[in-house]
């Protein structure tokens, strides 16, 4: 036990090396500090500095600020264009050789090509296919409602102002002056200031009504709304203001005429 105690009691001379070490460290740090303070900024150039100290330096962009998706989100699969090869396979069309083509001599150009014994073939061009003329084609923007009796309409005259159909079917041709009078009268009684002035798109409202034998409008209703209440109401009121269009022509045998009247509002800025 005493020997062990002696070991612990032995004391080495630590004081001197520790002092030297501390001094050397202080000297080392001091020299570094001194160098940095007096020499570091005076040699070399600053990166990105063009020599102008007014601040045109490029600034390195941190990678984290680049708007890259942090986590690519799973997108819904496009059912029309995806990488699946699908259940069918498209086979490239086999190249067809034109029988009338003259072969190009590839080896010996001096070899005369024997004329073909086949009779010359007259080139046949495919004639333009005749498109069947459909009588119920309606010009863009002038079509009526898709349902109802309008399907039987002949709209050939729509551009000119009216089309007609029916039993006699010739009211418009026989009494064009009456149709013009109806158009003028309705247009005169249509107060455009009743429409929402902020209207900026072209809309059309269709009003249905009938003209009785004495000329009074009857059964006035909106056949197809424009989606703009003020326009629909102004069109309805135009008809409601009218007492009579004048008696139907005496030569006309029918009792009443059905009219579909459309209203195109003036669009702001036009």
């Amino acid at each position, binding site marked *: 036990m005493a020997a062990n105690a002696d070991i612990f009691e032995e004391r080495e001379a630590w004081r001197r090396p520790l002092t030297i070490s501390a001094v050397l460290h202080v000297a080392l740090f001091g020299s570094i500090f001194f160098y940095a303070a007096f020499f570091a900024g005076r040699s070399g150039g600053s990166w990105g500095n063009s020599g102008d100290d007014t601040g045109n330096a490029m600034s390195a962009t941190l990678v984290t600020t680049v708007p890259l998706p942090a986590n690519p989100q799973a997108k819904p699969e496009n059912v029309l264009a995806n990488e699946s090869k699908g259940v069918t396979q498209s086979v490239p069309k086999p190249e067809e050789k034109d029988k009338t083509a003259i072969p190009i001599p590839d080896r010996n150009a001096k070899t005369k090509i024997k004329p073909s014994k086949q009779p010359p073939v007259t080139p046949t061009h495919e004639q333009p296919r005749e498109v069947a003329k459909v009588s119920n084609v309606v010009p863009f923007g002038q079509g009526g409602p898709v349902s109802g*009796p309008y399907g039987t309409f002949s709209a050939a005259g729509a551009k*000119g102002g009216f089309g007609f159909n029916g039993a006699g079917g010739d009211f418009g041709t026989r009494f064009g002056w009456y*149709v013009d009078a109806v*158009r003028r009268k309705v247009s005169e009684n249509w107060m455009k200031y009743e429409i929402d002035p902020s209207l900026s798109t072209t809309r059309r409202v269709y009003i249905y009504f009938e003209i009785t034998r004495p000329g009074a409008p009857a059964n006035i209703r909106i056949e197809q709304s424009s989606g703009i209440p003020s326009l629909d109401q102004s069109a309805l009121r135009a008809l409601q*203001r009218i007492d009579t269009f004048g008696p139907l022509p005496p030569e006309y045998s029918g009792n009443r005429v059905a009219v579909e009247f459309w209203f195109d509002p003036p669009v702001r800025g036009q």
Partner: protein
Amino acid sequence: MHPTIKMIRRFAIVAVLLLMAAATATAQDWIRTGTGLGMEKVRLAVPDFVPASADPQAGELVKTFNDTLWGDLQQAGIFDMVSKSFYPIGSFSAPATIKFDAWGSPPPNAGMVAFGNLGVSGGRVLVQGWLFDVKNQQSPQVLGKQYNETASVQSARIIAHRFADEIILRLGGGLPGIAESRIYFVSTRSGNKEIWSMDYDGANQQQLTHLRSIALSPHASPDGSRVALAGIFHGNWNILMYSNDLNRLVSFPVFGGGNLSPAWSGDGTKLAFSSSRAGAPEIYTCDANGGSLKRLTAVKGPDVSPVWNPKTGVQIAFVSGRTGLPQIYVMDSDGSNVQRVTDTGYAVSPSWSPNGQFLLFSWIRHYGPGAPGGDDIYIMDVASHKWVQLTHDSRRNDFPSWAPDGRHIVFQSNRSGSEQIWTMLADGSQQRQLTTSGTNSQPNWGSH
């Protein structure tokens, strides 16, 4: 083909045939039309009617007829009259003489042609007139008329008026012609203010009343049989009634106080007027025979010049000074729901349009000494209170009155130096002086 498909096809064919049969059964024609297809007026050519007889009177009658017909159609305001210098050379007395290409293409480029002939025989004048749509060669005839009257200048005028009204009725979409209407007004040409009447174009001016005092504010009944007016009778302002059938005044109750500005209701069964029988002038109504007197207003300040809404018959416009300067008000015919429609200035003489939509009135918008503007006629949409000025700085314009067609207006103006009767279209165009003799004022446009 598969038998099922065959069956479906057969069924479809049968269904289509049935639908076509159903469409044929409902004997009804269809028209499709709309706005924005051009609002141009009808280009109307009216070549002179041709004398159909060698009678010496025929020449004079034809001239009267042609002038009257041309004037009526030009005044209608719905036609673009083709100048006669553009017409093809020739005389056009019958349908066979009309060449469609010559009329329907430039220079005349007419849409419609009215033509015919006038003959005199045995003291009778016979007129044949046609209206042709020259753009429609398949069925060109719009109108064909024949008139037979006693041969006189007046008959020629009446026939021309009737033929013009027929044309206007057809091409104007049921627009009632005014060629046979009459205008009633106050004139001083006899020395006193009496009621006179004249044709709508200023012709045939006749004196109706002979009160030898003062007669004012004539108002014709809707059927044209009577004229209500205000006159000094037995020392008081009373409502008087003139019968066009009897050509004299007929009896009407005396209400007491000062009674002024009578106005007929649209159905001709009631009268509205202002009466000061209980103090300040207030609005009263009574039956056409003067019974069932009823007071409508009871507010401090004068209420005068009532006019009915001819369309509804349940509204009355009137002038009230309850807030100071006179303004136009509208109320229900029982006196309720009073609304002021003019906001400023000095507004008097309301007149309600036949369709009930518009009010005409005389308005000094900036009232006071040195104020700009004058006394002008204005038209107002009753529902929206939007208004348009029809006359512009042409001195004093007052007492507007609607024509039965709702397209013409008669009014008084002193722009020619003295108060005279003028007419214009409801948009302020075609202003035309009708009277020149004496001073003439307070016109009212009657139906007959």
